C-alpha cells in the first residue's frame, strides 16, 4: 500500500504543478459554465444538471487522452521507469498509484463544477438525489476513461502515439452505442452493453443501477490489468 500512496501523491502533485491540469480545468469550467448559463440560467428552465453532465462527459472524452498520455510513456522516455521498477514496489502498485493520481486531478475539477448545483440550490429546489447519481456517473466515466488513457500510455514510449491510441479506443467505445443501433438483434444488445455512453444514460436520469456500476468497475479493471501486463512486459523489452 505504501507504494500505491507514494506514487499516487507524486502523480497528483505533478498534475497540481503542471500547466496541463490548469489549462484543461479552465477549458472544462469555461465550456460548462457557458452551457450552464444557456441551458439552466434562463427563464422557464429546469433546475437539473442533465445538460451540464452531457457536455462534461463529452469534454472528458475530448481531453482524457491528452491528460493521461504522459503517465507511463514519459517515465519510460526519461528512464525513470527504471527507478520505479528497481524499487521495492510491485508493478500493480505503480499502475494503481498512477491511476489514482490522475483520478484525483479529475475529482478536483469536479469539485469546481459543484458551483453549478450550489447555484441551482440557491435559486431553486432541485432534486438532490439525481444530482448525486449524475456525479456518480461522471466518476465512473472518469475511471473508465483514465484506465483507457493509462493503457494507451503503457503500450508505447511516444506520448503522441499514446494520445492517438487513447482517442481511437475512447471514440470507439463511445460510438458503439450508435453503431449498435444499426446492428441486428443480439449484436445490438452486445454493442449497447459494451458502450461507455449507454451506461451513462441511467445515471443521468438519476438512477444508479447495479449493472451500470458493475460495467464501469469491470471496464476500468480490465484496462488497468492490461496496463499492468504492458508495464511488466517493458522489462522484457528493455
Amino acid at each position, binding site marked *: 500500500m*505504501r507504494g500505491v500512496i*507514494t*506514487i499516487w501523491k507524486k502523480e497528483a502533485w*505533478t498534475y497540481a504543478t503542471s500547466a496541463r491540469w490548469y489549462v484543461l480545468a479552465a477549458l472544462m469550467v469555461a465550456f460548462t459554465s457557458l452551457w450552464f448559463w444557456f441551458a439552466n440560467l434562463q427563464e422557464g428552465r429546469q433546475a437539473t444538471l442533465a445538460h451540464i453532465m452531457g457536455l462534461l462527459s463529452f469534454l472528458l472524452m475530448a481531453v482524457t487522452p491528452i491528460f493521461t498520455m504522459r503517465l507511463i510513456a514519459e517515465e519510460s522516455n526519461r*528512464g525513470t521507469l527504471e*527507478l520505479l*521498477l*528497481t524499487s521495492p514496489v510491485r508493478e500493480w502498485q505503480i499502475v494503481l498509484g498512477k491511476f489514482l493520481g490522475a483520478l484525483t486531478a479529475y475529482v478536483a475539477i469536479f469539485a469546481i463544477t459543484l458551483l453549478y448545483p450550489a447555484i441551482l440550490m440557491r435559486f431553486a429546489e432541485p432534486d438532490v438525489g439525481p444530482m448525486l447519481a449524475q456525479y456518480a456517473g461522471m466518476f465512473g466515466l472518469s475511471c473508465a476513461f483514465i484506465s483507457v488513457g493509462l493503457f494507451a500510455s503503457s503500450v508505447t514510449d511516444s506520448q503522441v502515439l499514446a494520445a492517438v491510441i487513447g482517442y481511437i479506443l475512447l471514440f470507439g467505445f463511445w460510438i458503439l452505442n450508435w453503431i449498435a443501433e444499426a446492428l441486428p438483434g443480439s449484436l445490438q444488445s452486445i454493442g449497447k452493453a459494451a458502450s461507455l455512453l449507454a451506461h451513462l444514460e441511467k445515471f443521468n436520469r438519476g438512477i444508479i443501477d447495479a449493472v451500470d456500476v458493475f460495467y464501469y468497475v469491470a471496464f476500468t479493471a480490465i484496462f488497468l490489468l492490461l496496463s499492468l501486463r504492458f508495464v511488466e512486459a517493458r*522489462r*522484457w523489452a528493455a
Partner: protein
Amino acid sequence: MIDVENLSKSYGPVPAVRGITFQVAAGEIVGFLGPNGAGKTTTMRMLTGYLPPSDGRVKIAGFDVFEQPMEARAEIGYLPESPPVYPELTVTEYLSFVAELKGVSRSKKSARIATVIEQLHLGDMRKRLIGHLSKGFRQRVGLAQALIHEPKVLILDEPTVGLDPAQIVEIRNLIRGLAKDRTVILSTHILPEVSAICRRVIIISGGRIAGEGALDTLIAGAGARQQLKIVAKGPTWGAIESALTTAGAKVSRTGGVEPLHEATVVSPSGDDLRETVFRAAVAGGWTLLEMTPQGGSLEDVFMKLTTTEEGVAAA
C-alpha cells in the same frame, strides 16, 4: 554480498551476456570494465532486477533478485547510465519521493534527506528544479537517490559518463568516500577510472568475463613486459652498457648528454630488473638518477584481454 552465477541474457537470438559468474565480498569496490557493447549495462540491469536474465541467478545480500525481489531491491542503490530524475521536481521533493518509494520510514525520512544532501554537497540546490541543474549536479542527485535508503550494495552504471574533467574527479572522490562502508560495483569503459577508484576489476568482453582480479595481479599476470627507463650518470656509456648486459638485460641508449645517459632496459625473461640495475650501478661505481617502470599498464592488459577471442580466464 553480490553473488552472480552463470548469468546469461539474450535479446532474441542475440546473446548479450554469456554465462558470467563472479562474487563481490562485503566492503569491496569492484570495477566492471569493458568496451562499449560488451554487456556491462545488461549485467548491471540484471543485478538490480530490472532485466530478467535468460539463465543463471543473482543474489544480493543473500536475497535472490527474482525470487525475493522486494527484499533484494531494498538493499540495492542503483544509478543507471542516465540519472532517473524528474525535471519538474525540486531536489528535495525528488529525494522525498524516492525515500518513500524505497521504504524509508516516515520518522527517518527527513534526516536521511538532510544526510545525503550534505554528503553530496547539494545544499545550495535543494530548492532548485532538477530540470534547471547542470549535468554534474544531476549526477549527484542521481547518486543521492541511490544512497537515500542506506543500501548495502551500490550499483553504478558508468557514473562519470558525459561529465567534464573537474566533475569526473569530484564524482570519483565521492564514490571513493561512499565505498568505505558499503559494497560497490561500478561499470565503466574508462580505464583510469578503474585504477582511480577500484581495488579489484572484472573485465568483460563480448558478454564473457575476460579477466578478473586485483589490479596489480592482473597487470603482472597478463605477461606484460618488464621495461625500465633509466637515467644514469657515469664516466662512459660503454661501462654501463656492459655491466647491464652481463646481468642479462637488453639495453639501448635513447639520449642524454655526457656524463648523463638515458636508456631503456628490457628484461627478455620478464623478471623484475630494478634490483639488477641498482646492483650494477653500485658495482660499477656510477650513479642512478632515475628509474621508471614502463609498459605493463592497465591499457596493455585491457587490450590484451579484450582483443583476443578466448581471453584469459581469471588471474
